[in-house]
């Protein structure tokens, strides 16, 4: 920019032209800086997904067909996997919301120092491998785990209970994995609320519960929806926790996908199933954006 301004003396039109050209070049340079990133996303994300789209639309003979998509809805077994996945995601999202809300709220009432200490327990799990967090539940709920030990010692039970490798354990494990991702946006939303508003409400005669319900809660809803959308969408495609804690009894969509590929190498059905998952994810994100104006984002710590 500077070089142009110095060199082109002379008439003003020439200068304006040179500046415009310079600004244009500047824009191109800035666009060019994003090329490596775009290149990576195109090569490692768009091309495999594009290939899957193609596979989902052709049969073995290479003819165009919607067969793979139609069988997803006509085979009762597949339909039940799909419905189970939605149900599981909805349950996980609901439980996470109910637990994360009071947690985030309690955090806002703490002093700065105490809050930092508590945040440690929210953020460290987020940085810890999902496998570690899943394994922990095998120790807690396993046949010789804490729960069974305590119950046996208290004489409540004689034989250890089978608490792992089932639906309940899967929900528990997923709630545990997803919770921090709900707490962080909620906490951010709550912290930005002017505390004077609720105090004003109570000084004007509102009961604590009315002040909470009519003033505080509505202001925190965007944060709640942002967290809920994120958790729901991540749960829809979640693989690790259900496949370890479900013990083969909980077949979610991602497990069904993996099995279709690794046992039968059926690319068409697997591709169609995967794209249905993508469509569900994108619809949920768009819905959240249109209906409640929420932009769901991965928390960035």
């Amino acid at each position, binding site marked *: 920019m500077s070089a142009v301004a110095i060199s082109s003396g002379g008439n003003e039109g020439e200068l304006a032209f040179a500046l415009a050209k310079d600004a244009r070049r500047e824009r191109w340079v800035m666009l060019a800086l994003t090329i490596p990133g775009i290149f990576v996303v195109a090569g490692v994300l768009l091309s*495999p997904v594009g290939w899957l789209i193609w596979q989902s639309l052709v049969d073995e003979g290479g003819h165009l067909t919607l067969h793979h998509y139609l069988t997803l809805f006509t085979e009762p077994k597949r339909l039940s996997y799909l419905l189970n996945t939605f149900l599981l995601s909805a349950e996980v999202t609901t439980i996470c919301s109910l637990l994360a809300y009071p947690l985030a709220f309690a955090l806002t009432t703490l002093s700065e120092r105490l809050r930092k200490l508590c945040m440690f327990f929210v953020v460290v799990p987020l940085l810890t491998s999902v496998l570690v967090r899943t394994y922990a539940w095998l120790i807690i709920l396993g046949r010789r785990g*804490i729960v069974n030990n305590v119950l046996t010692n208290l004489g409540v039970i004689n034989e250890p209970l089978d608490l792992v490798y089932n639906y309940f354990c899967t929900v528990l494990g997923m709630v545990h994995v997803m919770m921090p991702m709900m707490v962080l946006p909620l906490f951010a939303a709550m912290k930005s609320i002017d505390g004077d508003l*609720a105090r004003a409400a109570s000084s004007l005669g509102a009961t604590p519960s009315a002040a909470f319900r009519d003033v505080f809660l509505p202001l925190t809803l965007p944060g709640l929806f942002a967290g809920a959308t994120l958790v729901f969408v991540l749960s829809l495609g979640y693989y690790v926790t259900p496949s370890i804690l479900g013990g083969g009894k909980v077949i979610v969509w991602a497990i069904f996908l993996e099995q279709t590929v690794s046992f039968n190498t059926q690319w068409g059905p697997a591709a169609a199933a995967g794209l249905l998952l993508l469509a569900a994810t994108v619809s949920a994100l768009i819905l959240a954006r249109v209906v409640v104006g929420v932009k769901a984002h991965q928390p960035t710590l």
Partner: protein
Amino acid sequence: MSRDTEYISRWHRAWLYVLLSALLAFLAAPIFVVIPVSFSNTSTLQFPPQALSLQWYDRLFSSARWASSAYNSLLAAVLTVCFTIPFGTMAAYGLNSIRSRAGKLISASLMLPLVVPLILIAIGLYFLYARLGLINTMTGLVAAHTMYTLPLAITLIAAGFKRFDQNQEMVARSLGANRFKAFLTVTLPQVKFSILSACFLTFIASFDEVVIALFVSGGPNATLPRQMFNQLRNSIDPTIAAISTLLIALALMVFAAMQLLKSHEA
């Protein structure tokens, strides 16, 4: 902040703190449970362990398979940082000064890895890599992890650029520094904490990534999470607890580093 919530009664407050402690304990459960079990002297997952021993760490460190998978994960994570951070910094810098529609489109497409389910990407890559001969190679894994960590790095670094006054770089350039030198000497020192935190998070995200690694890393190039995942489905002896303890230590180190960076930034 605490004075802003006087309208909550004392009893409610007491309940709230009981609930808070319970929920924090729930979140931190793995830390409380996995670490003691890793020092257990029996092969069953007994909690609390009856006696302490270091046998699982001994077994872990003497196993060639665990050592090689740990090495692979480390290498993959370091290489991923080497690609993600420069690419992410360039993209964040570029996008910071583009206000056009094209800029929005580019920025949205760079965030795609957060939107597309990981399992779908992994399956697509499994096939694509098989065709290209990239399956079970470090190249393939690092490419995939670069894609996976890019949105995170861009978001963090972009936040750094947003706080930086762009005019400072213009001043440096008008005083004779070329663009690159102006960036290195004026801009970079002011966003270095954002870039460093992006480095740490990229590293740990790649190191702990499971789903893509399950499909595209294997054989001699299997990563630690892949090895762990397979082991978890077969036997769950305390060797896993020993690795888990080391992974928790890694998470704690990253957390400490991030806190340190945050305090520098402020």
